[in-house]
């Protein structure tokens, strides 16, 4: 959970990434954090696709590898954090993008930027219940198709709901 954290000094190469983003999308970044060697940027949902494409194509950044998509549920604030871990095979640097959405909201799908997002987003939909707009085939991946509920939410009990 994001409480008051010491804003550590961001090293130069990571500062460069933030500056490049700010030059084009000046209002996209809500919060930036650098701790334990990792850069985390919380961005506004409407900037997700343009920023993702920018990060993938920009010649100095080249984040061409989508490592992971994850969703974290915060029931007290009734919101989800969708976390995207990106990696550049060419420059070996990582960045983490976070998007906060309210429960029940949906978010745009990244499948047209990275094809790897296909199953990763299906998993998030299956286990946390977040819908991705524009996903080619959004259906459950682990649980049977007629399952009710989304187990990774914090209000779902560990031993399941008995019918």
């Amino acid at each position, binding site marked *: *959970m994001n*409480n008051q*954290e010491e804003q550590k000094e961001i090293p130069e190469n990571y500062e460069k990434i933030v500056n490049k983003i700010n030059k084009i999308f000046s209002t996209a970044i809500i919060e930036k954090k650098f*701790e*334990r*060697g*990792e850069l*985390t940027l919380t961005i506004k949902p409407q900037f997700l696709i343009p920023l993702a494409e920018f990060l993938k194509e920009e010649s100095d950044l080249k984040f*061409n*590898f*989508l*490592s*992971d998509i*994850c969703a*974290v*549920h915060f029931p007290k604030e009734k919101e989800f954090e969708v*976390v995207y*871990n990106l990696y550049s*095979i060419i420059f*070996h640097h*990582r960045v*983490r993008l976070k998007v906060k959405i309210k429960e029940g909201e949906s978010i745009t799908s990244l499948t047209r930027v*990275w*094809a*790897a997002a*296909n*199953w*990763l987003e299906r*998993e998030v939909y299956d*286990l946390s219940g977040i819908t991705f707009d524009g996903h080619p085939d959004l259906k*459950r*991946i*682990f*649980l*049977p198709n007629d399952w009710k509920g989304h*187990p*990774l939410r914090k209000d*779902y009990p*560990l031993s399941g709901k008995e019918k």
Partner: protein
Amino acid sequence: MRKTYLEHTKEIIMNMGPQHPSTHGVLRIKLWLDGETVVKSEPMIGYLHRGIEKLAEYRTYTQFMPITDRLDYVAAASNNLAWVQAVEKLMEIEVPRRADFIRVIITELMRIANHLVWLGTQANDIGAVTVLLYCFREREEILDIFEMFCGARLTLNAFRIGGLAHDIPVGFKEKVKNFIERFPKYIDDYERLLSENRIWLKRTKNVGIINAEEAINLGLSGPSLRASGVKWDIRKSNPYAVYDELEFDIPTGEVGDVYDRYKVRIEEMRQSIRIIKQALEQMPNGEIRAKVPRIIKPPPGEIYHSIEAPKGELGFYIVSDGSTMPYRVKIRAPSFVNLQALSKMIEGHLVADIVAIIGSIDIVLGEIDR
């Protein structure tokens, strides 16, 4: 014009699995076939889903470690390493050098064991039944080494947060040295049986090709990606443990077919032997565990740490809220993302090629379904 009979044929939908001798676990693939050619395919998973990520939120960091063994059960020590290093990164603990060297030795032995299982099952699927037995004979020796180290053969639970549980026993170094001296000859044996064999070449060359750009876009990682020509290995690009002090090469392929993936993994086995040899020589004396508090309570924050597991990039994303149990654990399983590439690879191929291609991606359902 008269309608010919051929226009009335349609594709048959055939199901492969979940019980099938060659799908390496409970994997179901729905195939749309035109004769024996695959027109479309859809892998369906979830038969081994055990809710491990949910379970992690109700276990302490130390209690979760044996559960990571069961993810990729063929190469259990890699999962342990990724978890333990992720927690250490979160808590900013520095592990003593001796422990790091021993971790490298165990992990590289595990890589060899994993590739032996892959080679045996892949050869068996294509029909060379003898190679399976030979690979498992060598794997027995490796499992004996593990049993000497931590008492278990398969699900090792080998490491602890901060280092190791206990130091290596007397005779361990000699046993490992003995093994790595004899092993390259065995790899030569497998190569002699398969690499130049006409039948093997015909079954594996130009089968299941995927080019580098598509592979990166699909999230493919590990030996399958390197076979397509991308020279990326996390041990070299973002080194962890003591890999930056050891010398080794990264084998790559050119075409990205089943044969290249085979060659890459065979070469990786040789490189692992090289790493183990150097690690044995350079291992310092010293402590094997850092000063770690009794109760593991990482500060609030998050971390994503990934390692080069034998199957690809294995990553753990941990969100901590300051208590003894993680708030959220996300496991980035390499086989899960690699399996997405399967549909692309088997398009246009025959049914007989499917088993060869599945074998070459090297999946294990434990980490796909978690």
